[in-house]
C-alpha cells in the first residue's frame, strides 16, 4: 500500500504483491483434525535481475538497466506491447490502465538517490523487508533466492534474498497453490 501511495498506482497496477501460498490437506482421525494445511506469504515486486528477461524481450529498448543496476522503463520508448510482462517470470511489469504503457517497481529511485530506503521497506509493520546491495543482504540473510512458486534463480539472476518461512522451506509443491490469485493478478493481461 505504501507502494500504491508513493507512485499513485491505479487499481490493478500492483507493483508489489503479497502472494498467499497454501497447501497441505485436512485429514480427520476419529472426528478430530490430525493433519492440517499450511500457508505462507511471499511479498514480491520487481527483483531487478542481473539478467532480466524483460529487457531481452523488449522490442523498443524501453526496458533497460540503469547504471546503478535498477531495471527501469523509458516510457517515451514504451509502446505498451506487454512482451516484458509475458517474459518476466515474477509477473513484475504491469500496464498502466490509463496510458496503456508498461509500468513497474522502480525501487523508489527518487528516495534511494536521497539516501533513503524504498517505501515498502520502511512501511512493513513486521520489519520483514530490507534493502541494500546484494553483498550486504547476502551477509545479513544468506543467499536463498527462490522458494515455491518462484522460478529458479538461474533464469534471470534476481537481486533478491529470502528468509524462508518454516513452511516454505519444506513446501510440498504438489499441493501448494497461490490462494489469492484474484488479488495478485489484478491488471495482469
Amino acid at each position, binding site marked *: 500500500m505504501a507502494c500504491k*501511495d508513493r507512485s499513485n498506482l491505479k487499481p490493478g497496477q500492483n507493483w508489489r504483491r503479497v502472494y498467499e501460498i*497454501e*497447501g497441505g490437506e485436512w485429514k480427520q482421525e476419529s472426528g*478430530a483434525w490430525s493433519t492440517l494445511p499450511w500457508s505462507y506469504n511471499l511479498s514480491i515486486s520487481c527483483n531487478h535481475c542481473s539478467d532480466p528477461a524483460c529487457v531481452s524481450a523488449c522490442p523498443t529498448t524501453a526496458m533497460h538497466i540503469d547504471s546503478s543496476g535498477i531495471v527501469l522503463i523509458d516510457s517515451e520508448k514504451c509502446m505498451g506491447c506487454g512482451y516484458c510482462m509475458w517474459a518476466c517470470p515474477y509477473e513484475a511489469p504491469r500496464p498502466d490502465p490509463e496510458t496503456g504503457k508498461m509500468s513497474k517497481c522502480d525501487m523508489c529511485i527518487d528516495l534511494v538517490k536521497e539516501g533513503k530506503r524504498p517505501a515498502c521497506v520502511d512501511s512493513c509493520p513486521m520489519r520483514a523487508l530490507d534493502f541494500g546491495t546484494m553483498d550486504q543482504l547476502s551477509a545479513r540473510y544468506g543467499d536463498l533466492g527462490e522458494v515455491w512458486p518462484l522460478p529458479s534463480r538461474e533464469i534471470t539472476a534476481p537481486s533478491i534474498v529470502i528468509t524462508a518461512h518454516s513452511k516454505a522451506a519444506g513446501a510440498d509443491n504438489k499441493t501448494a497453490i497461490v490462494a489469492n490469485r*484474484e488479488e495478485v493478478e489484478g491488471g495482469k493481461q
Partner: protein
Amino acid sequence: MSSDRLKKVAVSDRRTFVKWSTLISGSLLAGPVLQSCSDPAIGAAESAAAAAAKSPETKIIRTGCPSHNCGGKCLLKLHVTDGVITRIETDDRQGDDISDPQLRACIRGRSYRKRQYHPDRLKYPLKRTGKRGEGQFERISWDEAYDIMHSRITEITDKYGNGAIHLPYGTGSYTNTNGRWPAVRLMNMLGGSLGFYNSYSWACINIATPYMFGTLESGNQRQDWLNSRYILMWGWNPAEMKDGTNSDYFIRKARENGARVVCIDPRLSQSAVALADEWIPIRPGTDTAMMSAMAYVIITEKLTDDDFIRRCCSGYDAATMPDGYKDQESYTDYILGTRDGVPKTAEWAEKITMVPAAVIARLAREYATAGPAVLYQGYGMQRRAYGEQVVRGGASLAAITGNIGINGGWASGLANQKGGGPFWTVFPMGSNPVKQTIPVFLWTEAVVRGTELGPQEGLRGGDSLDTNIKMIWSVASNVLMNQHGNLNRTRKIVEDESLLEFIVVQDNFMTPSARFADLVLPACTQFETWGVEDGWKYGEEVFLTPKAVEPPFETKSDYAICAGLAERFGVWDKYTEGGRTEKDWAAWMIDMNYRRTRFPDMPVFRKLSASNKGVYVKPVTTPAVAFREFRENPEKNPLRTPTGKIELFSGRLFDMNMPDEIPAVAKYITEWESPFGKEAEEFPLQAMGHHYMSRVHSTHDNNIWSMEAFPQRVFINPADAEERGIADGDMVIIRNNRGKIRIPCRITKKMMIMVEIEKALPAGRRSNG
C-alpha cells in the same frame, strides 16, 4: 474530465472549490443520492499528487492515523501540497528501539487518500424527501438543518422528556473533537439523553474480567512478552486487526527470543501464518471446552502452581472455597466432574472442539511447564453466546498455573496494561441529568418497549424508563443499520416513524444508517480538524492531530456542528467555554489533562505542535507487571473482589441464581444454534466474521486501494464447497432463519471445514462506523 478543471480543484481558492462542488451536487441530486458521482475528487487529488511530487511547497505534517477503533494507533506523515494530501508515509523516527518502536501504519492508514478524497463523501446537509430508508434526500442549508434539529429536539423533549433521545454507541471517529463526544456534551447541557453502558466490542470481557480480578487492568506492558517462553494466541489475530500497534511485532520479537508461539483459531489467520510455530484449528464457540480439558490435564498431572493457588486464589477446591459457599461446586469439582459426573477430559473436549485429545494434553503440559507463559485472549470468542465463560476460562488457566504477577506471564481477561491504559476520551462531556442507562445492545428494545425494561434486563440507574426512545442522534456510528444484530428486524423498527419520530445521522458517507435518517449532517474527516487521541488499549502514546487540510464543501467537524446547534439553544458560550475552537480544545486536552494526569513530562501543546512530531511517547524500558504486588503479598495488597483474591468461583455470580446461564465457575455451555443442536440439520455450516485488513468495521469499505488488496469474500473450505457444487469466485448466498446475504466466495484451505467466514460484519458497507 479536463485538466483545467482538475487544476481548479487543486488550488486552495475556497470559492473555486465550492463552485466546483456545486457542479457535482447537481448531478448527485438528479438520481438517488447513493449513486457514485464519478471521480473528479480522486482525479483532482491524484493530479495534485503528481504535480506535487517534486513541488518545493510540499508541507510535511506528522499526525495520528485517523481513529476508527481498529485497535492500533499509528503515526502518519502527510505530504500536503496546495491544500491537498498528496502522499502518506508513516513513522520515520530513528532508532526503532523495542522500548519505543516505530508506530508503522497498516494498509488502512496508508491507503487513506482513497477515503479522504472519495467522490461519495457527504458534502451538504440533506433532508429526507422519500420514505424513511428509501434513500431520497434533498440538499438543504446549515441554517435549515439547525432549525430542524432545534425544533425536533425541543418538541421531543417537551413531549416525552430527555430520556427519549439516544446517542448510540459508535467509534467511527474519536479524536475527542470529532466523534460522538461533542454531541454528548451538548445533550448533557440540554437536559441529558438516555445513555448506555458497555460496548459492542467487549461486552463479555468487560463484565467478566472484574469478576475474576476486581479490575480491568490485568495486562503487563507488552514489552514483557519478550520475557515469555510460551505464548498461546487464543482466537487472537493482531496481525490483521491491530490489537495495539506493534503487538504483532512484539510477538515476533518474543519468538526470536525463544518463545514458542501457538495460535488457536478456526482460520489460518495472518497471525497464525506469520507469528506462530503451530496452528490449532478449533470449532467456533467451543474454546471453553478446550480450556476446561487443559485444566483437567494440568490438575490431574499435578502441574498446578499450588503455592500460588493457596495464597492468591479463591474457589479452586473445597479448601479454598469462600465462606458462605463452602459446600458449592468448586472449580476443581467442575473440571473433574465430581458433581455433574462429566470429567472434562481431553477426550471429552476432542468431540466438541475437533482438536485431537493428544494435542489438547500436549498444549496443557507445554503451557503449564514451559516457563512463564502468556495466554492472550482475542475478543471474537467473547462476542458470542456465553462469552463470559471463555474469558473466565482463560483467566482460570493463568491462575492455576501461577502465570499471574510475574514477568513473562499474563493474567488474561481484558488486560488493560498495568499502570493505566489509555483514556480514550478526555473531552469534557459533563454529567448526564438522565440517570438511567441501558446495556449498549438493547437500544432496539428501548425503542420498542423501553418503559417495560427493568434491572433484570440490565437497566441501571433506576427501576424503569419514563419513555421509549423516540429520537436517535447518531454521530460517527454505523450501529443503526450495520453493526447491530438481526438487521431485518432492526430495519422494521428503525423505519417505523411512529416508534422513532426523528433520526439524525452525522457522518462522512451515506452509510446504511444514514440512509435511514431524516436529517443527514456532513462531518469532516480527522485530517480536516484538530484533535487528540491516545494509544488505544495500551496508551503509552498521545497523538496530536492537527488540521492538515480544510474541510471540503460544507462539511464541519463534529464539534463545530454541535457548537452551531448550541447557538440555536442559546448555550453557545457555555458549550464552547467562551469560543474555544477545536485547536483550543486540543491545547486544553494536552495542557490541562494529559500533562496533569498520566504524562507530566509531555511537552506543552505549543511546543508539541511546533515540533511537528505528531506524537509524544513514553518509552517502556522496564515493563510493568500486573498483580505483582498482589502476588507478593495478597493480604497487604488484596484485589477488589469480595474475597480479595482471584475468584475462580464467584459468590456474586452464584447469588444471581442462574447456574445454567451464569455459572459461578467458568463452564463450557453449548451455544444456542450450535452444530450440536437441531438447527444444524437445516443449517450445517457455522459462519463467523473476523476483523479484516481492508476495513475497520465498515470504515474503508469503499476504499478502492484497501479493498483491492483484501476484497470482500466469504471463505469456505474446499470440502464444503465441493459438497455444494461451489466454485472459487462464485457468488453465494449465506442464509439463516433471520435473513441472507449474497457475497462472492473464496475457496481456501485456510478455513476450517464446516465453517464459513464472512470477511465482513453482516451488512458492512461504506461508513464511518
